[in-house]
């Protein structure tokens, strides 16, 4: 093998050299080792090398944001959408469709878990409850004492529509944790913001539902005699909480005892068998649908008021900063997050959730 004489390399040569790029851009271990030793041997060339390195990094800006796994999923998702040519033919629905493509929607029904408490070998409700209450972390608790559905905003911008009599608890800084975990007692419709690096978990008494980013429904009424999980679109993994305790299921991929649900599939617990069985289900899409809005050159302040009213939430903003922005759009089947994101694009702002309120940030 002929050794390249890098001593004579100009910056331009370095910038286009495969071994150099493997070190700078991909942190390839062999290339890194090579350049490390080469620099020790050739200290008089270090400035040239460092400068070329900085130039490449300045153009790269940030480390690879798409992992191999993520890329594989993206390709799979794209191939899965081939043949849906009709969607791209309709320009009017196109914009909404475009935004919707980001929402992997799933509806999950988990019904009647209470009775399982005594049926599951090794699992006991008091055990589970005490485990939750002795936890050191501070939890925010939201209970819907009204007779209407209530929207709860989570710090990661996910939303939960909580049904009357239901309760949700979560850590106030859940969005900063490696796993996003909420505890549900009752019924809730979850619209989870996609974040593959931080999977989202819904814990109920006996079941854990894991998703990366999707919308789904969890119903866990104690009085029901049957438990089920149903999905409309997207994918969720369901497993018994006792399995979670055995191994670190949170970090691991689905195992044999888990049920991975695809669209129109349902997992059911029956009284006689302490395991999940899978079956088909139709017609869940219509169970939950988000409010529809139609705006025609409507001032953004009025748009916010409409959203506040429809979702029963608070939106804080500086009116003078968004004065003069008009919105013409139809929001149908969109999550609150997507609606807010779209508006923020128009007003060139951003938003975050603070103590259950939407805070709109606008530039100076």
């Amino acid at each position, binding site marked *: 093998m002929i050794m390249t004489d890098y001593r004579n390399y*100009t*910056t*331009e*040569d370095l*910038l*286009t050299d*495969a071994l150099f790029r493997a070190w700078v851009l991909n942190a390839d271990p062999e290339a890194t080792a090579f350049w490390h030793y080469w620099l020790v041997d050739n200290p008089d060339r270090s*400035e*040239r090398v*460092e*400068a*070329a*390195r*900085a*130039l*490449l*990094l*300045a*153009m*790269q*800006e*940030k*480390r*690879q*944001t*798409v992992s191999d796994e993520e*890329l594989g999923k*993206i*390709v799979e*998702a*794209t*191939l899965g*959408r*081939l043949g849906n*040519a009709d969607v*791209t033919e309709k320009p009017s629905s196109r*914009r909404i469709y*475009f935004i919707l*493509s*980001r929402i992997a929607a799933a509806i999950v029904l988990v019904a009647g878990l209470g009775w399982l408490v005594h049926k599951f070998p090794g699992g006991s409700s008091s055990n589970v409850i005490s485990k939750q209450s002795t936890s050191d972390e501070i939890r925010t608790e939201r209970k819907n004492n009204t007779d209407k559905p209530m929207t709860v905003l989570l710090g990661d911008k996910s939303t939960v529509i909580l049904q009357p009599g239901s309760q949700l608890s979560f850590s106030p800084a859940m969005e900063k944790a490696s796993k996003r975990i909420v505890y549900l007692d009752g019924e809730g419709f979850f619209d989870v913001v996609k974040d593959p690096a931080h999977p989202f978990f819904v814990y109920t008494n006996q079941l854990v539902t894991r998703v990366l980013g999707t919308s789904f429904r969890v119903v866990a009424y104690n009085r029901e005699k049957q438990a089920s999980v149903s999905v409309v679109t997207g994918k969720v993994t369901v497993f018994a909480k006792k399995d979670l305790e055995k191994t670190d299921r949170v970090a691991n991929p689905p195992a044999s005892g888990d049920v991975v649900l695809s669209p129109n599939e349902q997992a059911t617990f029956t009284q006689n068998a302490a395991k999940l069985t899978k079956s088909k289900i139709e017609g869940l899409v219509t169970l939950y649908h988000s409010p529809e809005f139609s705006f025609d050159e409507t001032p953004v302040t009025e748009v916010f008021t409409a959203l506040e009213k429809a979702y029963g939430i608070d939106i804080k903003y500086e009116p003078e900063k968004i004065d003069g922005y008009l919105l013409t759009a139809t929001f149908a089947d969109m999550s609150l997050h997507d609606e807010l994101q*779209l508006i923020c*694009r*128009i007003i060139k702002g951003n938003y975050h959730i603070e103590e259950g309120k939407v805070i709109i940030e606008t530039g100076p």
Partner: protein
Amino acid sequence: MPHLSENNRLRDAQLWKELVLGSEQALGALMHIHYRSLVNYGQKFIKDEEFLKDCIQEMFIEVWNRRGALSSPNNVRAYLFTSLRRKVYREGHKLQLFEHHDMADAETTGSTDIEFSPEWWLIEEESLAERTRKMGDLLNLLPKRQREVIYLKYYQELSREEIAQVLTISPQTVSNLIQQAFMNLRDRIKTVAISLCALITLFLGY
């Protein structure tokens, strides 16, 4: 200088042929090969990553849907870059992500307002981070045409001809722009403080 680019070009052309014949796998392969480059390129003129990724996905789906009508591009990579830029501006315009003059610019000159923000980059080594940031500043001082040419050539490793195709200019103009860019960088570097003297040696080699 080793020339892998010709091999890559032939590989892409082969995959494109298979794609036209209806191979979904070929489309997947092209995505695997070019996706990251497209994300990096797109990020230069649109910061909304989710939006960008949607655009890339839509673009590949459009290629698939129109595969019967598309003529084989002589350079797939350059074709994808051009398509992405058009796509981002078209969709971005609908969502009002761009100012009007940006749009007019992109349409008439085929040039986009590329900007480097290496402060996003979290570099462990303090000195390298500082150097990278300064280098980003220097690059941003270049006229935008020169900036884009430098980026396409040295980051994306596009050939002179490929760049010419993406920017719809002649290969000779590409060469001129690169030369001007390096001259500009050299001049600017002279006026910057001593900490950057290293860069002078860098560009003297050119």
